[in-house]
């Protein structure tokens, strides 16, 4: 249990995938223009990451070390295709708007990063929980970035108008370049708050 709490704190704050490790930046830039997209992407990543880590941790005993990247890619893409089939089967109307995101999950370096750095050296159950926690930490930041971008770029939140029509929206936030500014500001805020916390401890 302690291990779980420590891992959760590490992932969400100290070693946040986006703010600290700068991993998974591609989807954080590409799909955070709308909150709905960010939520869907986060759920997809959570599912694929937890199960991929579990599987990688199980098969690590049987596979050769130098073939591990190949095996990991195989596992990750396998889960992504299953997610795609399940979505088409159960929620076909969402599948239409979600099409491009599912493929993007394969290219998320965070998933492979966790498989390589954690699942390779830990027990299956620990790896599975690490996947869930990493997915949540990734999702929180994605949704936060998307909230700022959607409100400033489109004047909406979850496609509900929140800024009145007198506000002029900022087109920059609708394009991926706008995400650089938001992520940059988040990383800066994360760094100064960490420094402050460290300073408080030293005092």
């Amino acid at each position, binding site marked *: 249990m302690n291990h779980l709490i420590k891992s959760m704190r590490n992932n969400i704050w100290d070693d946040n995938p986006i703010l600290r490790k700068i991993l998974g930046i591609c989807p954080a830039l*590409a799909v955070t223009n709308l909150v709905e997209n960010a939520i869907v992407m986060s759920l997809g990543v959570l599912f694929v990451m937890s199960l991929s880590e579990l599987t990688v941790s199980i098969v690590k005993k049987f596979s050769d070390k130098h073939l591990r990247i190949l095996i990991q890619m195989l596992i990750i893409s*396998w889960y992504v295709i299953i997610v795609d089939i399940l979505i088409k089967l159960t929620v076909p109307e969402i599948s239409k708007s979600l099409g491009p995101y599912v493929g993007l999950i394969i290219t998320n370096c965070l998933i492979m990063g966790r498989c390589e750095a954690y699942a390779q050296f830990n027990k299956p159950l620990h790896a599975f929980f690490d996947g869930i926690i990493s997915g949540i930490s990734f999702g929180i930041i994605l949704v936060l970035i998307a909230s700022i971008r959607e409100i400033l770029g489109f004047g909406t939140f979850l496609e509900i108008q929140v800024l009145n029509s007198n506000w002029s929206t900022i087109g920059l936030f609708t394009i991926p370049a706008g995400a650089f500014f938001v992520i940059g500001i988040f990383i800066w805020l994360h760094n100064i708050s960490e420094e402050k916390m460290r300073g408080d401890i030293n005092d």
Partner: protein
Amino acid sequence: MKKYKPILFVILFSFVLGSILGSIYHVTKTQIEINEHFELQKCLLYAINITTEDMTKEEVYITFHNHLMEERLRGITYYSYWQEDQLIGYCFPFSGQGLWGQVTGYIAVDVTGVEVLGIVFTENEETPGLGARIDDLWFKEQFRGLDIQKSSDYVSFDISDESGLATISGATLTVNSIKDTLNQTIDELKEILKEDFNESSD
């Protein structure tokens, strides 16, 4: 034998994963096709301006078959639109190159080729939140009643033009592709209406 072990493992592992995936695909294939067909029915009903939002699957099925009839012409599958035994218009498929991939959909025109009844996009691979916003309701709705009696440039996103439609900021390339595809499709459609159905807007 030991040096072949890793290769054998990868082959076996790929075979196992591939077989499971194949089985899942095989089991779900029929239901996915049914879902896709149902989505297509909803799209076509939207194109002829019939809302399906509050309809059950059965209601969509009945409404679809009451109004639309599948037909073939010049190797194209199209749908004729009927209302109480009166032919109102046609739904023709269109397909063009978007920014990242194919954009496909249906365009519904009235039987005399005077105006567009509606358009719908069935598939696109455009950037989510940018090019993919061609599927937004406000964007599709502005095509309803679009005059296609002139000889060219039916669809225009030029704001100085009186009949110019609103474009999507940040998706210029996608919107331009849509414009070219639709203009070409409408040209072909008018030709079909003139030659095959003996209807003309002239």
